[in-house]
């Protein structure tokens, strides 16, 4: 049996985790069962997200090579065929042995309370959690109205780092230096394009444009006249707010509703023309798979969304439906959104806010069960439309077991954004980046729930590797303008 304790930084100090006390009842439960303990691996995480998709204890199958997405587990040889995953943060003061027995029972299909599944097994990118995520951005106004919480105020620190004026001034000074250099060679285009993907409430755009005028005046330049600032966001509501924020610069600002994973569908006309592409807190919110290397074999994590029986019963009762009809009602919510759902089903939802309440309750209760499916031939796995799974090889084969994010949506956005950059252009991205693959061996990096959205840390080394293969130098450094933040600044620009 293999035991992997990941949050090693929490094993020392005044509040050190007592792992042995946590594991003892779980071992007892395992020993009282018939599971093959010689083929079992146990992983202990510290799931820092208060709202997440995990149970305290999950038991996961590791499928042998040859098993298909919905196939029956075969009899092929594997080193391990079961993973027991434990959230150490929630192990204190609970009946761990009972919880472990219940988790093992769910694995055997003999649990006393069957879960209400919302989907079949699938790669995480195809899970309905991303439909919830999409719904959150599309119906953000209703969510905010119901919760009374604005998205930005829910961010750590209460505001986006995008508004940091010193960071923006530094950026502008760099940008002006490049433009000066090109102008001296008579190579500066007449139109100077800047793109922001994911505009939030427009404060970054406003800060950038306000500071632009200040820096331009200080340096006695005439670039504002030629500037085109393109605000792009998935949410029309967010874009509308952002437009109001930059009303004073309306002659220089255009806005686009677009999917951040494929910006060139709308912005292809700007290929090789954009000097700055600014992205903030977008990548962590895009669909992501996870892959793993266990015992020398590669796997993709497959998931299945469900509601625990108790939560499902409670929700069904409160919204006048039964357990069997609940999954369809949830999928109807995801298709229609809360406003239309309330109109379509007045017997269940008197008004839109009732449908938002339903949405919120389901979201809070939503869990993901997992299993590992063999990944045979990395080239057959598509990270993004133009990116082969071969890009994962150096990271997966860096030695030892590892489980990490693929951040498919972020990769798609990244590789579709790079062609927009002018040869002297730069992609600047503030987000939660993992900058060292070893971090995956020592921490839990998502998914978590953030308000109504999904959040994952981003696999920085993967983006670095893919960027390198496309001729870009990708660098990471901690966000320098606010102390104690997890935010990392990624910069990508043409190499050679």
């Amino acid at each position, binding site marked *: 049996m293999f035991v992997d304790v990941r949050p090693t930084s929490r094993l020392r100090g005044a509040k050190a985790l007592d792992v042995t006390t946590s594991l003892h009842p779980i071992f007892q439960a395992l020993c009282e069962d018939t599971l093959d303990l010689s083929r079992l691996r146990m992983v202990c995480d510290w799931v820092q997200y208060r709202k997440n998709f995990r149970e305290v204890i999950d038991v996961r199958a590791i499928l042998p090579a040859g098993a298909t997405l919905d196939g029956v587990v075969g009899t092929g040889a594997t080193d391990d065929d079961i993973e027991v995953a434990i959230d150490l943060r929630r192990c204190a003061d609970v009946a761990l042995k009972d919880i472990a027995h219940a988790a093992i029972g769910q694995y055997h299909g003999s649990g006393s309370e069957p879960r209400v599944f919302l989907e079949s097994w699938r790669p995480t990118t195809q899970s309905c959690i991303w439909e919830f995520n999409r719904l959150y951005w599309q119906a953000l106004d209703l969510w905010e109205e119901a919760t009374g919480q604005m998205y930005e105020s829910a961010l750590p620190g209460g505001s986006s780092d995008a508004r940091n004026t010193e960071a923006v001034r530094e950026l502008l000074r760099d940008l002006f230096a490049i433009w000066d250099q090109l102008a001296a060679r008579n*190579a500066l*285009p007449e139109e100077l394009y800047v793109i922001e993907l994911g505009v939030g409430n427009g404060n970054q755009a406003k800060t950038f444009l306000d500071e632009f005028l200040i820096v331009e005046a200080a340096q006695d330049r005439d670039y504002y006249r030629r500037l085109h600032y393109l605000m792009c966001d998935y949410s029309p509501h967010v874009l509308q707010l952002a437009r109001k924020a930059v009303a004073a610069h309306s002659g220089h600002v255009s806005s686009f509703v677009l999917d951040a994973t494929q910006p060139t569908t709308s912005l292809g006309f700007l290929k090789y023309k954009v000097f700055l592409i600014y992205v903030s807190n977008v990548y962590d919110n895009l669909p992501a798979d996870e892959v793993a290397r266990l015992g020398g074999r590669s796997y993709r994590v497959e998931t299945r969304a469900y509601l625990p029986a108790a939560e499902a019963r409670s929700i069904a009762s409160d919204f006048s439906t039964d357990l069997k009809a609940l999954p369809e009602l949830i999928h109807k919510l995801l298709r229609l959104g809360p406003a239309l759902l309330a109109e379509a089903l007045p017997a269940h939802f008197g008004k839109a806010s009732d449908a938002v309440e339903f949405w919120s309750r389901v979201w809070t209760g939503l869990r993901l069960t997992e299993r590992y499916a063999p990944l045979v031939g990395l080239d057959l796995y598509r990270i993004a439309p133009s990116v082969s799974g*071969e890009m994962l090889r150096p990271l997966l084969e860096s030695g030892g077991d590892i489980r990490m994010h693929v951040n498919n949506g972020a990769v798609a956005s990244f590789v579709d954004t790079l062609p927009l950059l*002018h040869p002297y252009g730069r992609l600047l991205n503030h987000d939660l980046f993992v900058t060292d693959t070893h971090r995956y061996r020592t921490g839990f990096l998502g998914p978590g729930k953030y308000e109504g959205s999904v959040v994952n840390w981003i696999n920085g080394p993967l983006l670095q590797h893919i960027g390198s293969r496309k001729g870009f130098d990708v660098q990471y450094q901690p966000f320098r303008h606010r102390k104690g933040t997890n935010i990392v600044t990624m910069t990508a620009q043409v190499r*050679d």
Partner: protein
Amino acid sequence: MPGHAAAPQSLPYLPTTVVGSYSVPEWLDRLKTDYYQNRLSKQHLSEICDACIKAALKDQELTGIDVVSDGELRRDNDIDYLLARIPGIQVMSATKAYYYDYYETVVTNALPSHDTIALGLAEDFSFTRAHTDRPIKFSFTGPFSLSRRVRNDAYPNTADLVLALAEVLNAEAHRLAAAGATLMQIDEPFLAGYPDEVSVAIEAINVVTKGVDATWGLHVCYGNRYARPSWEGHYDFLFPAVIDANVDQLILEFARKGYDDLQLIQRFGWDRALGLGVIDVKTEDVETPDLIAARIRRALDVVPPERLIVNPDCGLRHLPADVARAKLKAMVEGTAAVRQELPRDEGAAPAAGGALHSVNGDTHGEMIDEATG
């Protein structure tokens, strides 16, 4: 027949050709990287490249390309394949995280006598010659672009380094000609980034071609590193300096940038062949034969058919193989359509002195034999 020199054959007007590199499959990327990380032997890599070159030649033959290349499939990139073979150029670290990365190189002393330096390109050509009966274009990076990737700690100025590298390439060109190469192309992918230095680049090109009995092409583009342009601008920087280049063909990028720069050919009286880029190699969208034909017709407004060659904008290395094949096929079909529109004696067979003729008017071996039948 493999192992034998090409049989003489005639080339039509508007001969189709490639610029140099051919599609590099992902698995070859991986294997080459394995070699540079010491996980694959040189012997195995060489055998793999042999097979890939044969396949690339076959692809070009099947799509109907008139003048083929080895696809540069033996090379790690356009610079290092040459630089790393030049005694006196020091490579700081011979391993690479990715085979296509550039080495960091430095020259600390004047390069040794060029007569003693063989770069192995003649052997590469001979392999290609043995595996196709089509006319071959052999391309290599020019001295100016090579110099941009070397830290110069040896020569008083960059121009001296450029000329020294040109001497090395000239010696190699003589070896290539001796091995039977009759059409050689100098690539200068970095030149567009240094428009003020065209004159030294042209001076060096004339050193490379000096006394070499071959037809010479000069390819200048805006870069194709990782399928991206490295620079932007217009070809006006090339003129009039390029008129003094002792080359027979000027092979330029047009499809991606548009054809406005064709007027430069007319305005500055370029009187030799033009290699017209009709395929955008930076997009996987496959051009239609009609679009290719329209692009050729536009060029025919300023260049007569006997001086027009049809080719992609640049190398095809970043395109998937199926896309590369489809683009070449469209290029061949579009060209054929335009040939049909030429007066019969022009479309069928060129007169002596056609697009592949040497600038000096000498009888430069195979290409002229082929062109004149």
